């Protein structure tokens, strides 16, 4: 599990560190340039100052050894000065200065390694006096000066880092409080508590999450309600035929009249058929519910599918089925299993509403789908929008209907990306159902 707090902490600390490092680098480079400039100027000034103090070359000591003159104490460790005559004799040097010539350059800045140290030297040549004055300092010293400056900056910063870290950590904790509160609120909920998260109290950044969760709650609640309703209806639709079965069985057992017993047994058979179909439809509906939104769409030969589905069904004596030859080889892009369910339920619906007549399966002339029409009583106009609702049973319901057939047909069509359109036949009583490409 990744912690948002740890992550933010690491990012913030790293970013702060990087900014600090760049600042230090910048200051280092800037200071170094500045220091070099200042020190170079100092060298120049010192050389000129010494040059102006020196007399003519004749001022050398009589014994020929160069005189050493004491430099200013502050310069003692840092600056060294040599005075050479133009003909190459050392005239004088400061106390800390090396004995070897600091530079061979006749004038200006130069760098040279003397006695293992790099010197930066400024030379002034005075032709009138016949001397060359060289003032130099060690680069190592310069470097130390910059380093000391940087250390002076970095040390307090390093000492502050732990405090800064603590501050960031605590601030993050404070800043993430709304999230923690929301999590605690959610964790403490009952499984069936689907009330919305109070969006007014959540900060703007968490709002999308709260909104998404609220949306999910609504969906789950709707799904649950739907499930409860379906279960209640299913219970009703199953218990009624069971009550019929039981009553008829008790009649058959109690009666002494063989005709009554026979009638009751016939009713029991009918009730068993009907309950079987109901259970199958409940399972079909449950399967469609569970199948989700990922059908496997393919071009389905509708004519073959209708013929195959209709062939396997028991038909009452007076009812016949007509499959339009135009439907042969006609294809629709659909999920084959879903479409089979739709066709079977539409066909059953048609057959169950007719004592006699023809159920016709046709292709639409414009190629936009197919239709089935029956010669039953049709559906009252005001009930048409409701008949695809589960367990809705209108006034013209068939004796063996469950209120599920058209609902399943609609669900199955929708799953295939097809749409179902129901209307009463204009030419005669009967229902016409179209399965259309979306």
């Amino acid at each position, binding site marked *: 599990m990744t912690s948002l707090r740890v992550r933010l902490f690491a990012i913030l600390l790293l970013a702060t560190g990087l900014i600090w490092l760049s600042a230090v680098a910048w200051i280092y480079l800037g200071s170094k340039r500045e220091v070099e400039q200042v020190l170079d100027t100092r060298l120049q000034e010192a050389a000129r100052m010494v040059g102006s103090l020196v007399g003519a070359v004749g001022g050398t000591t009589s014994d020929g050894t160069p005189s050493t003159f004491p430099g200013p104490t502050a310069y003692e460790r840092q600056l060294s000065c040599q005075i050479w005559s133009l003909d190459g004799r050392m005239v004088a040097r400061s106390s800390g200065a090396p004995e070897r010539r600091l530079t061979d350059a006749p004038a200006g800045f130069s760098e040279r390694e003397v006695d293992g140290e790099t010197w930066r030297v400024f030379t002034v040549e005075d032709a009138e006096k016949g001397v060359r004055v060289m003032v130099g300092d060690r680069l190592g010293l310069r470097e130390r000066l910059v380093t000391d400056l940087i250390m002076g900056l970095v040390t307090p910063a390093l000492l502050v880092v732990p405090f800064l870290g603590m501050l960031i950590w605590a601030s993050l904790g404070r800043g993430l409080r709304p999230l923690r509160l929301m999590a605690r609120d959610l964790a403490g909920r009952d499984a069936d508590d689907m009330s919305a998260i109070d969006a007014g109290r959540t900060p703007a950044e968490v709002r999308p999450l709260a909104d998404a969760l609220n949306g999910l709650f609504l969906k789950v609640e709707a799904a649950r309600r739907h499930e409860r309703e379906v279960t209640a209806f299913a219970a009703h639709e199953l218990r*009624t*035929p069971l009550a*019929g*079965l039981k*009553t*008829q069985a008790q*009649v058959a057992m109690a*009666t002494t009249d063989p005709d009554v017993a026979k009638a009751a047994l016939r009713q029991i058979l009918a009730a068993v058929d009907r309950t079987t179909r109901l259970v199958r439809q409940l399972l079909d509906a449950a399967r469609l519910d569970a199948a989700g939104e990922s059908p496997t769409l393919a071009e389905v030969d509708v004519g073959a599918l209708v013929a195959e589905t209709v062939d396997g069904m028991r038909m009452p004596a007076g009812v016949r089925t007509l499959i339009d030859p135009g439907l042969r080889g006609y294809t629709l892009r659909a999920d084959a299993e879903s479409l089979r369910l739709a066709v079977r339920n539409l066909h059953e619906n048609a057959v169950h509403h007719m004592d006699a007549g023809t159920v016709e399966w046709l292709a639409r002339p414009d190629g936009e789908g197919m239709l089935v029409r029956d010669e039953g009583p049709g559906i009252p106009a005001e009930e048409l929008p409701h008949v695809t609702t589960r367990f809705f049973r209108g006034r013209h319901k068939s004796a063996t209907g469950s209120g599920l057939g058209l609902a399943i047909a609609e669900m199955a069509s929708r799953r295939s990306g097809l749409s179902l359109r129901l209307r009463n036949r204009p030419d005669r009583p009967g229902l016409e159902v179209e399965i259309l490409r979306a």
Partner: protein
Amino acid sequence: MRILVVEDDPILSDGLRAGLGLGGATVDCVGTCVDAEAALATSAFSAIVLDLMLPDGSGLDVLRGLRGRKDRTPVVLLTARDAVADRIAGLDGGADDYLGKPFDLDELSARIRAVVRRASGRAAAVLEHGGIRLDPGSLAVTVDGVPVGLSRREVMVLAALMERPDVLRSKAELEERLYGWQEEVESNAVEVHVHNLRAKIGKHAIETVRGLGYRMRASA
């Protein structure tokens, strides 16, 4: 006993007609609220068996209409929904009893007899008058302890008279209780049944008040 069954399921409805008929009742079946209202408007019933979920509305609406008209006909509700809230709504709506589907036919018959008995103000299940005992559950009739074999219709006529022994029952009233709508009634059917009854339980048990009807003769 004439019972109206309001149930939209044809198989259950048919079963109730046959089953309650075996228990000695005349049963009329309807499948919608509208038909139930029509039946209640035209005929008197001893009891109503009412399904709650009907295609054109709720059985509770029929019940409320019935009670709104001050009709006190006992009502037994049948429903597949057995949530407590539904039972309470049913009983508060004026139902006398309540049975969840699927139910036992004998239990339904017993409950119907019980609500009918309560409605007529009797406490005992068995009807008694003079030396005659009629058990509405088993339809067994004894006279002075001796069992008498009666036909179903004869028992029904006797039960109708014995429920309120001092009240006169007209011939039309008896016919209505004996025969459902689909049954052909012969014009002298009631007279024939009464004649046969007298032959079996005693000549003077039933009194004829000319032009008005029949009643049990006050016991000596």
